[in-house]
């Protein structure tokens, strides 16, 4: 099976979707001629022409708004917002139009769009190139929210997202593009070519939306994570020697609650991990669900390890980033309770 980076896997997914379905169109800032700042669309304009893969002005509201119009009339746009931090001008269109057009048109019009955006920190991007704004979208009914953590899932989930009849917000943790970053920034990252999840089927396949995956089997404590934090949690389990069961949520909406409940009922302990800020983060929803569904199985409070409630700092990136040490401490606390 071929080896791919997450970038190549995403490109392969878009390529296959475009090949199979002429309704799929791909656009965004620098996406066409240049092939995307992270190269996720490199070569697609050459292959499919400028009417199917093209550049847009720097105009996120315009990109998303026109995509919604296209989708309402039968196309399947897969657009890129260059950084998740740039999505806010488009937020109105996503919330008020994309997420609601099905409901308010009595199902006559739908919005099958995918909005891809690189998210997360660890690249010294400062406050406007590092954010993880997933909770702003999980709070909106009518959307699906996906966060892959490896090339195989990225490809399968993206094809599924493009196939999906509803709007999908597709976050790509940019620190994972080239390898499974585990928070040890002082060490080189293992490239995907040397990781089993870098093996990606060259053809068409899907990873269903709404299905989590247990990434590490364990009996002591359940860790709920997604994106980069999956590898941070793996490192923390390794380094503390705690037999954690690590669940990679993969999609936040719809959420695989069955998988979570089954695991927490088994372990009796739960730690939620994400890179975004703490207050009203997606971890709050997870903690609430866990206590609702697993209260009588819990032997410790549900812990949360997240970014601090501050803007993403430039200088103190690694103080902000919830690395393996902080996750490890939370695991120890959960075990000691």
């Amino acid at each position, binding site marked *: 099976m071929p080896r791919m980076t997450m970038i190549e896997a995403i490109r392969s997914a878009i390529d296959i979707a475009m090949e199979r379905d002429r309704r799929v169109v791909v656009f965004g800032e620098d996406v066409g001629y*240049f092939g995307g700042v992270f190269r996720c669309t490199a070569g697609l304009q050459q292959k499919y022409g400028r009417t199917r893969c093209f550049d847009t*002005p*720097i105009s996120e509201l315009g990109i998303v708004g026109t995509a919604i119009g296209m989708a309402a009339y039968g196309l399947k746009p897969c657009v890129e917002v260059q950084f998740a931090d*740039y999505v806010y001008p488009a937020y109105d269109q996503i919330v008020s139009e994309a997420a609601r057009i099905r409901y308010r048109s009595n199902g006559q019009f739908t919005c099958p769009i995918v909005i891809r955006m690189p998210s997360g920190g660890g690249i*010294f991007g400062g*406050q406007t*190139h590092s954010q993880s704004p997933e909770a702003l979208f999980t709070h909106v009914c009518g959307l699906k929210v996906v966060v892959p953590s490896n090339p195989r899932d990225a490809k399968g989930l993206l094809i599924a997202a493009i196939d999906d009849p509803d709007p999908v917000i597709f976050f790509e943790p940019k620190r994972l593009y080239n390898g499974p970053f585990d928070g040890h920034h002082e060490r080189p990252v293992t490239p995907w070519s040397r990781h089993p999840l870098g093996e990606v089927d060259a053809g068409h396949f899907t990873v269903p939306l709404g299905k989590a995956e247990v990434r590490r089997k364990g009996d002591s404590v359940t860790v709920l994570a997604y994106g980069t934090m999956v590898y941070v949690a793996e490192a923390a389990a390794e380094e503390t020697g705690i037999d954690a069961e690590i669940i990679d949520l993969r999609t936040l909406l719809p959420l695989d609650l069955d998988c979570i409940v089954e695991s927490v009922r088994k372990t009796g302990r739960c730690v939620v991990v994400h890179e975004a800020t703490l207050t009203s983060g997606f971890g709050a929803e997870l903690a609430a669900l866990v206590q609702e569904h697993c209260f009588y199985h819990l032997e410790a409070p549900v812990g949360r390890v997240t970014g601090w409630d501050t803007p993403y700092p*430039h200088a103190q990136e690694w103080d902000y980033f919830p690395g393996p040490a902080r996750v490890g401490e939370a695991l120890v606390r959960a075990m000691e309770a």
Partner: protein
Amino acid sequence: MAVAARKASRSDAVPSAVKSRAARKAQSSAQKKGVASFTKEEDLFAYREMLLIRRFEEKAGQMYGMGLIGGFCHLYIGQEAVVVGMQMATKEGDQVITGYRDHGHMLACGMDAKGVMAELTGRRGGYSKGKGGSMHMFSKEKNFYGGHGIVGAQVSLGTGIAFANRYRKNDAVCLTYFGDGAANQGQVYESFNMAELWKLPVVYIIENNRYAMGTAVSRASAQTDFSKRGASFNIPGEQVDGMDVRAVKAAGERAIEWARSGKGPYILEMQTYRYRGHSMSDPAKYRSKDEVQRMREEHDPIEQVRRRLIDQWKLSEDELKAVDAKVREIVNEAAEFATNDPEPDAAELYTDVLR
């Protein structure tokens, strides 16, 4: 690509202005004045200021290469005449706000090179104590309102600053800079409408360096004459040779006078060029080496002034060398400070989130 370059150079050759009555008036006065020549002092001043920006940016590029600066770093090399010429047209109290290619603006506003460089390296002596980084720093003292990492976001803010000027009845003008890329953001036009409606003292300076990140102007803009972008709001505009600091200053004076006298906003499209990639990770493969080389050789803003200093003002090699040495000294001091200054305390993480 070649077509785009030809188109751009054609429009370079024929500066035009919008055809509103106000604009025609402004344009005709511009033509009468032509490009004012500089005094020796002005040329020397412009030379020193532009050279400081260039050497600072070259040093920043080096320090990035050495790993001392991380993340994002957008160099202003090639565009120096724009901000320097504009600053020469301002008076005390005028404000400046810009996007992420901001180091030059800060130096031209008189901010300390040490503080700017230390922000790039994320040290506590940086203007935002290292927490902002290259794109996010400010100086209340120098009326510099940032440094904004989101493309186009500063345009609305600059409009608001101009509103505050009007409200407070001071006679300051807010110089609001953005690029050809930002000019396609929706909020720019919401701002234009309000600025003209309320006659706000703001000058919109569009630094058209021909590429919005990796996308050439002609591939992203339906109207590539940015001076016309205010036409439907009746905002006058003109295209300016942004590589000639004298032309910039002259246009800046006209625009600032217009805004200061209560006539409302004014648009200046600065036709300029960035020599480097969009950011440090951009190899700039979307344009030819020849194109960059031609701009450097034929239009370099600093070289133009240097030639005048030698040919017209008869400055000796030694005099020029003294200026160069002084500039290098400032830049080296800044680099040394930014390398040795400590990082902020971890406790600093939570300061200035709220009061």
